[in-house]
Structures are given as structure tokens and as C-alpha cells.
């Protein structure tokens, strides 16, 4: 029914999809699998007309199609439910379903009755009972998802893409969603299902297609593979040599930071971990598994249900990053542009942002000369390539921007640094430099927690790895156990203990 052949996609000179095939039949649930960054989302954006392929063809029922935009894909019967919903929270389900194409009655007024009837009919077709006249913000996440699916079906979608629909659902809601998917399968809808939870693949899917680094790895029936085989297809075997050698951490090294209990949500899993002097502790897991929230909770920047932290054995409770700073813990946030840098500031102003204590004059004033000297030294230490300390940071490349954030923290005497996605969107050369900087920091007896969605990075960098799943740590591995198969298995099937 749906055939994607040899899809290639280039952004500028960088090719992100290297000829991907995907075949989906009517009445089939087809899993699209791959690590973060494997190209799943890009492929789905091409299928739904949001992006155009650089090469390759899309055929529906044998006829070649070109979608200039999302609307044309919808007209051809393709529907997608994004991971981030596109519902308007204050409107009810009916209003959301007919947004922008409201049915009109006499005098051009809204024909609410006709829209309601049509909505109810679709909900019946899905065999779900969703309240139609309360704002969707008051519906559960699962019900909102059903509204999204109903919206796609009201547009006569025959090919439905569900992008990680189960990531935020409870187990019983997942069952409900699967019932809906089975009903749609019975009605000959083709479903492309993206999920990182492998047990779900075996429960609901008929066929799988695996991508890795933008390459087509393979496609087969679910009955032909098992868990290990799927993980192997997803992670492959790659050799990364850009990582500095791990010097090995003395098991007797003192514990600097100890999280006794971190519970993100009431009723969710409770995590504990310790960070030793001189080590890099990796936080691995899928997107949305609670890694970033956990590190933010340590600093009091995320409202966790419980967070008990000891530093050097003394119990501490940080009310915000400013107190973390005072105790020598610094954070390099996930998104440089939105959370890390003041983009309208110069390098100098960004580096000294939280450290004016270092160059004060007469208590109140900034010693501009000293500030310049310190910044120049900090820039040289991390090798920022820029015209000078007064260059605006939004003129820099991603790698240099990240180095500016690193320089900001190295300008202090910090003991613990938390790197959230340290090399996202950075080229290979700059990555290696940042890894070296991280190792140089721990070599002085300091410690690093690094959160990363890139498995090779976690593996190549960390002395120990905590694996997250569904809001908590499911396993901590070290030594030879730090390999992609073990981590991926924990991240996709690890047991989560929910605590009241």
C-alpha cells in the first residue's frame, strides 16, 4: 500500500538519510525502530510532506506521489500523531478535531450539531468513550491521543503514523491504545508505530523496519526476530576512537555527591546513585526517561516529589542553581540556545555571567581589565575559536558556543559539573575536544555527571553508567558491562519499581 524507495535527505552538504526503504501494507502495524538520531523522525517528516526528500520516491497504492506540504499529505490519506500533541488545550475535543475546517450551517455560523455527530461517529469507530465537551487539557494523556487519532481519521487517513505514542502513558492506558490500534488494523488502516519499548513491538506489531545512522538496516516480520536480535540491529557495531582513555577510578575514591532518594513524581520510581571523586558518571536512557529531570532536581530546578542529597556526607537541599553554584556544582543545560547562553551577550559577558565575585573592584564594580584577562584565559583554556572575547555568541558555531558554556564553569573552582547532552549538534572534531576537556577536569579529582542520548558517547566516556527508564534508574553498570547491548536492554526492558 505504502512504498518509500531509496529515500535520501541532505541538509546542506550533510546527508542524514542514505537511501531508506519502507513498505507498509494495509491492515498492518509496522514498527519503525532505531536509536535517537537514527533518522526515524526525518523519514516521517518526509512521508507527511513536512520535509521533501532529496532523492527517492513515495508511492501510495502504486502511484507515485509528491507532497509539497503537510496538507497535501493529509489529502492523500496520511495522518500523523506527533509526540508533542498539536491540540489547543482550551478547546474541547470536537472543536479540536474540526479546527480550521469547521462545518458551517446557515448564515456561516458553526454547525456544532453536525460536528458533534461526526465526532461521536468516529469515536464509536475507534471504540473509545472520550468526553467531547470538556477542554482537552482536562483529558488524560491517553484520551488526548485518541482525540489526535480521531482527528486524523476524520480526515480519512488510511496511513497513520504514531510517533512514540506510549512514551507518556500508564500501562493500562497503553493497553487501551493497543485495543484502538487493533481495531484500526481490522479496518485496514496501515499504522506506522514508533516506540523505544521493545516489549510493545512484540505485543502489537506485525513487521519491523530498523534504521541506524540514517541507513536502512533491515525489514522483517516480528516473528522472525527476538529482543537481542532487534537490539543488535539497532546499535550495530561501531568503533569510536575519539574518546580519551579512561584512567580508571579508584574504588576507594571518596563519594562527593550522593543522591539517597530522588523521586520525580509522587508514586514514581525512586532512584539513588553516588558520584565519586574523579569519575565521569553517565546517565543513559531514552528521551523522556527522566535523566534531565533528575539532574535538575538535584539542583532544585525541577520540582521533584522527593530529593535527598548528601554532599561530602552532609545532607543538603538546594533551592535552585544559585545554591548549587555556591556549593561547587554547575550545570550545562540540554539546550545551549534556550537554557545555556544569553545569545544577545558577548562571549565575555556570557563567561563572567555568574562569576562577578572574581573581579570586583571597591566591592560594587566590575574590574573590566581583570574580567577581560580572565575571559581571555578561559577562552584559551577551552580553545574557543572566535574573533575575540567581545564577539557575540550567536555568531559562533555550535561547538564554540558549547565551549563558551564550559568556559563559564571552568572560570569557577567547581567540583561537580553536570553536562546535559554535551555534544548535541556539534561536529566530530569539536566533540573530541570537549571529551578531552571533560577528562582533564576529572583528572584534577573533580567529578562529572553526563546525560547523553548518544549511546557511543555514554559508553566511550563514562566510568560507570546509570540506565534510566520511565522516570528512574533501573540499573547501574560498570567495567565490561558498559556496552550498547546491555545498556539498550536495560533502557528498553528494565524493571521499574513504582513506590507509593
Amino acid at each position, binding site marked *: 500500500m505504502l512504498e518509500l524507495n531509496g529515500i535520501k535527505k541532505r541538509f546542506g552538504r550533510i546527508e542524514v538519510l542514505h537511501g531508506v526503504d519502507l513498505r507498509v501494507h494495509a491492515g498492518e502495524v509496522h514498527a519503525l525502530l532505531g536509536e535517537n538520531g537514527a533518522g526515524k523522525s526525518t523519514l516521517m517528516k518526509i512521508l507527511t510532506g513536512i520535509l521533501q526528500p532529496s532523492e527517492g520516491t513515495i508511492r501510495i497504492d502504486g502511484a507515485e506521489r509528491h507532497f509539497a506540504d503537510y496538507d497535501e499529505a493529509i489529502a492523500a490519506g496520511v495522518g500523523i500523531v506527533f509526540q508533542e500533541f498539536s491540540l489547543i488545550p482550551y478547546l474541547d475535543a470536537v472543536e479540536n478535531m474540526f479546527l480550521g475546517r469547521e462545518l458551517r450551517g446557515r448564515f456561516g455560523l458553526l454547525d456544532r450539531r453536525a460536528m458533534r455527530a461526526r465526532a461521536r461517529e468516529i469515536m464509536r469507530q475507534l471504540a473509545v468513550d472520550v468526553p467531547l465537551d470538556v477542554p482537552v487539557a482536562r483529558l488524560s494523556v491517553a484520551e488526548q491521543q485518541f482525540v489526535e487519532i480521531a482527528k486524523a481519521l476524520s480526515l480519512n487517513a488510511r496511513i497513520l503514523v504514531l510517533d512514540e505514542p506510549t512514551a507518556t502513558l500508564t500501562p493500562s492506558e497503553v493497553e487501551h491504545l493497543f485495543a484502538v490500534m487493533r481495531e484500526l488494523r481490522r479496518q485496514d488502516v496501515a499504522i506506522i508505530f514508533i516506540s523505544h519499548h521493545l516489549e510493545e513491538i512484540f505485543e502489537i506489531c506485525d513487521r519491523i523496519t530498523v534504521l541506524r545512522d540514517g541507513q536502512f538496516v533491515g525489514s522483517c516480520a516480528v516473528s522472525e526476530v527476538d529482543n537481542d536480535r532487534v537490539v543488535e540491529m539497532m546499535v550495530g557495531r561501531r568503533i569510536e576512537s575519539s574518546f580519551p582513555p579512561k584512567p580508571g577510578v579508584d574504588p576507594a575514591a571518596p563519594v562527593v555527591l550522593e543522591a539517597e532518594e530522588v523521586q520525580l513524581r509522587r508514586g514514581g520510581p525512586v532512584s539513588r546513585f553516588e558520584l565519586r571523586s574523579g569519575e565521569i558518571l553517565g546517565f543513559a536512557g531514552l528521551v523522556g526517561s527522566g535523566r534531565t529531570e533528575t539532574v535538575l532536581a538535584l539542583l532544585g530546578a525541577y520540582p521533584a516529589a522527593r530529593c535527598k542529597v548528601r554532599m561530602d556526607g552532609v545532607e543538603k537541599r538546594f533551592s535552585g*542553581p544559585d545554591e548549587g*553554584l555556591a556549593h561547587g556544582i554547575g550545570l550545562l*543545560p540540554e539546550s545551549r540556545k534556550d*537554557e545555556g547562553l544569553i545569545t544577545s551577550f558577548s562571549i565575555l559577558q556570557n563567561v563572567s555571567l555568574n562569576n562577578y565575585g572574581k573581579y570586583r573592584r571597591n566591592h560594587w564594580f*566590575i574590574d573590566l581589565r581583570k574580567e577581560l584577562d580572565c575571559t581571555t584565559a578561559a577562552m584559551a583554556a577551552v580553545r574557543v575559536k572566535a574573533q575575540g572575547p567581545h564577539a557575540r555568541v550567536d555568531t559562533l558555531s555550535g561547538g564554540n558556543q558549547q565551549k563558551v558554556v564550559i568556559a563559564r564553569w571552568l572560570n569557577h573552582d567547581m567540583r561537580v559539573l553536570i553536562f546535559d547532552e554535551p555534544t548535541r549538534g556539534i561536529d566530530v572534531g569539536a566533540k573530541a575536544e570537549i571529551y578531552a576537556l571533560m577528562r582533564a577536569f576529572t583528572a584534577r579529582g573533580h567529578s562529572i555527571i553526563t546525560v547523553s542520548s548518544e549511546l557511543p558517547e555514554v559508553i566511550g566516556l563514562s566510568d560507570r553508567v546509570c540506565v534510566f527508564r520511565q522516570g528512574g534508574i533501573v540499573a547501574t553498570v560498570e567495567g565490561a558491562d558498559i556496552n550498547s547491548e546491555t545498556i539498550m536492554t536495560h533502557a528498553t526492558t528494565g524493571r521499574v519499581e513504582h513506590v507509593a
Partner: protein
Amino acid sequence: MSHDTVTAPEEKGRGFSPASLLRSPLALPLIGLIVVSCLMGLASDNFFSLNNILNVLRQVSVVGVLAVGMTFVILTGGIDLSVGAVMALVGTLSAGMMVNIGLPAPLALVAGIALGLALGVVNGALVAWGRMPAIIVTLATMGMARGLGLIYSGGYPISGLPSWISWFGIGRIGVIPVPVIMMALIYAVAWVVLQRTAFGRHVYAIGGNETAARLSGVKTRRVQLAVYAISGLTASLAAVILTGRLMSGQPNAGVGFELDAIAAVVLGGTAIAGGRGLILGTLIGAVLLGILNNGLNLMGINPYLQDVIKGFIILLAIYIGRDWR
């Protein structure tokens, strides 16, 4: 002047060249000031006389001082609508303390200034810790301040102040009016605070990216509290000038001055979303507004029409400067 450009510090140390002056964020406000001055000079022979220029500056001083606090607030991405009402309340209560209670006048002035500061702290606490939008918080406190002043005074001006109070409004040192000197001093202090202290950098940082500032350890709430406190302080300093000029506490004074102050800040090139702008720009913006008022008066234009013309010029100025970086 080139080294005060926090938003474009790469110009530092290059000295004055026409090109660097054009790239400065002050360029557009300055050009506007020159153009409007020349037009007014053509229309009226008196415009460029020393007396008239000093007169314009004296008239500008009240809104000019209000606009200093407003610049701090807007640089963080906030807004303070209460400044006009706070100024009136401070003036009324100070006058009341002198006349009705018999407090020594200097003490009454200091108490008034402390009151303005306290009202600013309330605004700041509600915005920073109460997590409420600044426009709503200050709209509410604007109404409350105005109402309290009217209740206290019964709606009538409070007069009978010691005669030396008028020194703040119409006195002169040499040829220069006292309020102009006060305004200049307040701008100088504000410039130093914004450009030469860590607090000033944090004000810009919060307007540029509050999340990044907070995650890097800046005490963002304290800074927010402080900018509203500064706005309350400058509102009460403006009240001192106004009381001296009117020789009475006027509960109805300063209606709409908050909008003039915002217009001065924006005409001076400060981004309404915060993060970018210069205190000297605000001074230019305030003077620009004052010249418009003065020139239109000298030309004898119908006062109702003056408002229309001013509104049009503000729109035009902001349209020209809209994509300024």
C-alpha cells in the same frame, strides 16, 4: 560614549568613527532627536535659545526620572504601570506629613521616598515570587496607589508647604535648573549601575534569557525584585521634583505619565521584550518627547491635535527602528 554599549561591546576601543556611531544602538534615537530639533528650530525662532532648551529639559525632568526606573524594569522584560500613581501618592503623602502632621519637611521627603521604594518592593515581590505577570500586578497597584492618594487627600491638593521645597522644582544652580541637575545625576548613577556592576549585567541577562541566567546560578528573583524597587525609588524622586514645581501634593498628578515613560524608553531604542537597550537612549527618548511637546506648543497647535501627532511620531519611530539589533 562607545564603551557603554553593553549589547555591542565589539565597538569598544575603536574610538569615534562615523561608521561605529551608525552601528551604535543610540544612532537611531539620536538621528530622531536631531531631525525633530531641526524641524522645531525651523518652525520657531525661539526654539534654539538657551532659555528654551533649559526650559524643555526642566519640563522633561519628571518623566525623564520616571523613565530611568522604567528602563531597568523593561530591560528585564517586565513593565511598571504604577509609576505615575506612585509618584502622585508619594507627593500627596509627603505634603500631608508636612502640613497635616507637622513632620519636619526633610523627614517627610525622606519618608515619602522610602514609601515609594517600599511600593516598588511590593510590585517586585508579587512579580518575582508571586509569579504574576508584571502588567497585571502593576495595573492593580497603580489603581490602589491612585485610590489611596485620593482617599487621604479627599481629592484636593495639599498646599502650604515650606517655601524652600520649590527649590527642587524651579530652583537654579547658576543658570541650570535644579531638576535638570537631579535628572542628570540620576542618569549618571543608573549608567554606572547598568554598565559597571554585576547587578547591571544580570538585569540585561534576565531580559536576554531568564532561563539561562537562572540555570547558571544568577539569583534572578532578587534581581527582579530590585528593578521594581528601583522603579519605585525613581518614581518618588520624580515626586520630589513635581512637588517642588507645584508647591503642593497633588493626588491627581501624573495621570498617564507611565505611558510617557514607556514611550521614552522605547523611543530610546530599548527592546520592549528586554535584554537590549541603553540608559542614554532613554534620556534621548525623554528629551525627544519633551521637544515635541514644547515645539507643538510654541507653534500654537491645538492640544488635542498634539496628542494625535505625538502618537503618530512614536509609531513612526518604532516602525523605523523595529528590526534594530
